[in-house]
């Protein structure tokens, strides 16, 4: 008798748990008033009507120190630079923190009220990128400079450069180099030329932006595979230090993740944009909002706007 009772209880518990899961998963999709066959368009409409604009925005950010977060807060103005050299990250303290692009995407795809940001290279159909100021975060728009949450990765050199450095830059801008770049970023040249190494030997000293450094490391590995005579050192010091280092002749190539100022350009030989880094603001697929202004992006991530109704 006891055995039977226990068995019944266990079965009931398991069933209840399963039903609970099923309901949790479908809650955002079910609409009890309309049933039967529906076209995909009306499914979207149903979801839009279920979307409660009075609900709080779930702001999802990356962890402090992440390159994507650094670029995002800099480009959107979430980061405030004071006159006295202070830098303050104004990201809302209520923001959920996900460590890694995948965590952000899982969070956004499971929460209708969520908003987050990821590198444009990682966007897929589990989430939906918003247009910012009416411009979609596509590769074309980012290269054209019309999508605002994007930054160029630039290299600078002095007036006269040795053949090895020249060849390394040619490699970066070649088909092979741009393929390496395209693994994470948007390549600057679409039909890049092929590359052939002349086998120069020597050392190239590169320094600058912490954001550009990882891709530069990959590029130097790719180049050394073709030209083992070359020795490439990549130092990480920040965009500003990379530019001044090149001006002072300490570096052969300087890396920068911001535009080069005219005053700096006067003392440099050339600047080349090797790729573009775009950051997409993403929402749940069932979120009816498609467009946001760059000012609203800043306000959402600093916590000044807290409800979806504020954005429409």
């Amino acid at each position, binding site marked *: 008798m006891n*055995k039977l009772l226990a068995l019944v209880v266990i079965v009931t518990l398991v069933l209840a748990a399963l039903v609970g899961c099923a309901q949790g998963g479908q809650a955002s999709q079910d609409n009890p008033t309309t049933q039967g066959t529906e076209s995909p368009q009306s499914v979207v409409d149903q979801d839009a009507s279920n979307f409660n604009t009075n609900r709080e925005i779930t702001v999802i950010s990356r962890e402090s120190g992440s390159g994507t977060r650094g670029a995002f807060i800099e480009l959107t103005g979430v980061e405030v630079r004071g006159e006295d050299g202070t830098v303050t990250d104004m990201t809302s303290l*209520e923001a959920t923190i996900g*460590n890694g692009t995948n965590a952000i995407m899982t969070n956004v795809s499971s929460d209708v009220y969520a908003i987050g940001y990821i590198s444009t290279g990682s966007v897929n159909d589990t989430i939906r990128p918003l247009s910012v100021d009416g411009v979609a975060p596509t590769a074309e728009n980012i290269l054209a400079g019309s999508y605002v949450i994007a930054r160029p990765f630039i290299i600078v050199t002095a007036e006269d450069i040795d053949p090895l450095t020249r060849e390394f830059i040619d490699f970066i801008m070649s088909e092979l180099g741009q393929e390496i770049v395209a693994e994470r970023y948007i390549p600057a040249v679409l039909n890049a030329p092929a590359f052939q190494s002349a086998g120069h030997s020597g050392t190239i000293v590169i320094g600058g932006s912490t954001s550009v450094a990882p891709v530069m490391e990959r590029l130097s590995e790719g180049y050394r595979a073709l030209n083992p005579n070359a020795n490439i050192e990549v130092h990480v010091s920040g965009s500003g230090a990379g530019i001044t280092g090149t001006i002072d002749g300490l570096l052969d190539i300087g890396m920068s993740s911001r535009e080069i100022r005219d005053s700096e350009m006067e003392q440099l030989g050339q600047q080349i944009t090797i790729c573009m880094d775009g950051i997409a603001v993403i929402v749940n697929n069932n979120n009816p909002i498609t467009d946001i202004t760059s000012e609203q992006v800043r306000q959402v991530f600093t916590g000044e706007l807290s409800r979806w109704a504020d954005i429409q």
Partner: protein
Amino acid sequence: MSKHARETIMKYVFMLAATASIMAVLLICVFLFWNGIPAMAEIGPFNFLLGRVWAPADTPQLFGILPMVLGSIYVTAGAIIVGVPIGILTAIFMAKFCSPTLYKILKPATQLLAGIPSIVYGFFGLVVIVPFVREVFGEHFGGSGQSIFTASILLGIMILPTIIGVSEAAIRAVPDSYYEASVAMGASHERSVFWAVVPAASSGIMTSVILGIGRAIGETMAVILVAGNQARMPTGLFRGARTLTANIVMEMGYAAELHREALIATGVVLFVFILIINLLFNLLRGRKKY
């Protein structure tokens, strides 16, 4: 080789094996304190332990870990509230009420619960408990479902095998004479179990709770996925919080210089927490009867 020489060699082999774990603990202690204490001194012990703002990317940097200390304490307390009653009652049921057939299912089931990797628990929490909490409580209490509440439920489930296992062993260790005497005095089965056997096993049950606390406070991957990880003072049961462990794991990958040392110092604080818990455990075991 003489028998005597072999004896001597093997003696040192065993001694080496025995000292390996002691060496590991010592090395970890030395590493933690060597790296952590200077950072604490540089930040200032009070600014570090009682600071309410954690902003390592700002200039000037701020390293206050009070939000994370409170986050860890709240989440662990929540896990105890959820896990201890269920765990102890399950242990009593398994030791004194369960039929042998059901026990054959229950025992492996609770042991299996201990074997599930914590990242799997975390993923389960993220896709099942988080949406559930958001749907049910989000309307009235706000929050995204990633909260102290969610983390407490998940950790409460995760500490069940520890509490059930140790408590059950403690209850079974109580001599049958306690139970038999109670029944002989005319008490029912239930009364005998709850008023004679369980109180006799109380120090063992307390040990299980302390081990559960240790498990909960040290848990990392599962908590990161469901707690929200906001590095600010906890603001409510249905709002997120960041634990000490989460703070270390999330930022270690990018940290450099003082930031990195501050994270190691966070590890020191966590280590001290665990030391205190172990001390309590040993104190209890010192006066343990069953």
